[in-house]
């Protein structure tokens, strides 16, 4: 199997444009095909990812403890959190939806934060034996991250649809904003992580040895 850092574009002072895949000389400031500004692979990528991950963890706390939705039913107001919403869907027997909400707004965000932390860790400690699986993990994280937004959108639709004054009305809570912020920061964290760093490890070692 080809596993030599000498075959990396970085080692040959070349850089593949992430937008159009054209190979550019590292001295070029802009891609020669799509004229995009080129940002070279750097270890700052890990720092950015970790900073964004910490932000998302902080936002995840109010997202879970503040109410995401207020329901006004014949003058009685009840507030429900994300987890409370899942329980209230589970009890009347609407299992599929309870599972969808549980997966999208609890499992996926936690899994995503753990996965990205693991990826950052394995790049920093220069772990090289599970890179293919890690790349697959990264791609899955990038793909499913957006789907956490489902709960926020559902609250927005319910709140704009159910407005019958005192009979029944639904209002969004602050948790919706915190949760949306959490999803956006984890998406940004996934985007700022550069999977190529997993294979660039050896280059740094090589340069240190010189």
């Amino acid at each position, binding site marked *: *199997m*080809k*596993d030599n850092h*000498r*075959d*990396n*574009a*970085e080692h*040959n002072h*070349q850089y*593949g444009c*992430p*937008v*159009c*895949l*054209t*190979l550019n000389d590292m001295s070029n400031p802009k891609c020669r*095909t*799509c*004229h*995009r500004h080129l940002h070279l692979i750097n270890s700052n990528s890990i720092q950015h990812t970790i900073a964004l991950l910490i932000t998302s963890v902080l936002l995840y706390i109010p997202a879970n403890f503040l109410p995401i939705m207020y329901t006004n039913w014949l003058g009685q107001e009840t507030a429900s959190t994300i987890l409370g919403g899942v329980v209230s869907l589970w009890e*009347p027997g*609407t299992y599929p*939806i309870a599972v*969808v*909400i549980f997966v999208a707004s609890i499992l996926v965000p936690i899994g995503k934060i753990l996965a990205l932390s693991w990826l950052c860790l394995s790049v920093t400690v220069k772990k090289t034996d599970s*890179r*293919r699986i890690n*790349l*697959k993990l990264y791609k899955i994280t990038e793909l499913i991250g*957006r*789907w956490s*937004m*489902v*709960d*926020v*959108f*559902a609250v*927005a*639709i*319910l*709140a*704009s*649809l*159910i*407005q*019958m004054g005192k*009979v*029944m009305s639904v*209002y*969004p809570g602050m948790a*919706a*904003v915190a949760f*949306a912020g959490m999803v956006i920061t984890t*998406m940004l964290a996934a*985007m700022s992580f550069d*999977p*190529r760093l997993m*294979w*660039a490890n050896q280059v740094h070692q090589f340069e240190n040895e010189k």
Partner: protein
Amino acid sequence: MNNLTQDVPESDSTIACHGCDLLISLPELDYGQTASCPRCNHLITRRLLGAHNKILALSISSFIFLIFALPFPFLYFSNQGKDYVISFADSIFNMVLMDYFSIAILLFFTTLLIPAICLLSLIYVLVSLQQKRLLPYTQPLLQSVFFLIDWNMAEIFLVATLISFIKISSLATVTLGLSFWSYVFFIICLVAGLSLLDRYQIWRKVKIHER
């Protein structure tokens, strides 16, 4: 002679893998063939027969469906003899009325503006590729498609609609309106079109046209 001293040939078919940065010289692909990285298994490109024409057709129909999703009722809702109707835009306006500007902006951008910009840019770029010479701003527009497409959440809005539909249906009678079905077809065309879009193939076509 230069080739002997240089490890890497400077041809356009050499690319760096987006997953692991390995230099790969891509062979000329036949229709239906795919190329993936030998080191990290990352799918690099897929060449399909008539992909760009199909994307153009799907983008145009998707955009037409998006326009039809706007003026008509999205969901009907009746409770104790009273009827309530919301259109697609109402779900955004009502968020503004409730002072949740951030959610309103998020909804407006991710479910309406970004998909619309992506579709219009794709249509422009693909029409431009069918001309003898590229139309102006082709490259920046295509670049913006690849930048914005990660923020498209139209299909998530659809799933959210279905979830709230089931949530309310136990309380009152809810009916899906014409706009909703138009939005469904908009998403089907959008997802089908985007699944055919391949970075390497479309930029290669742009490069060929530039010469």
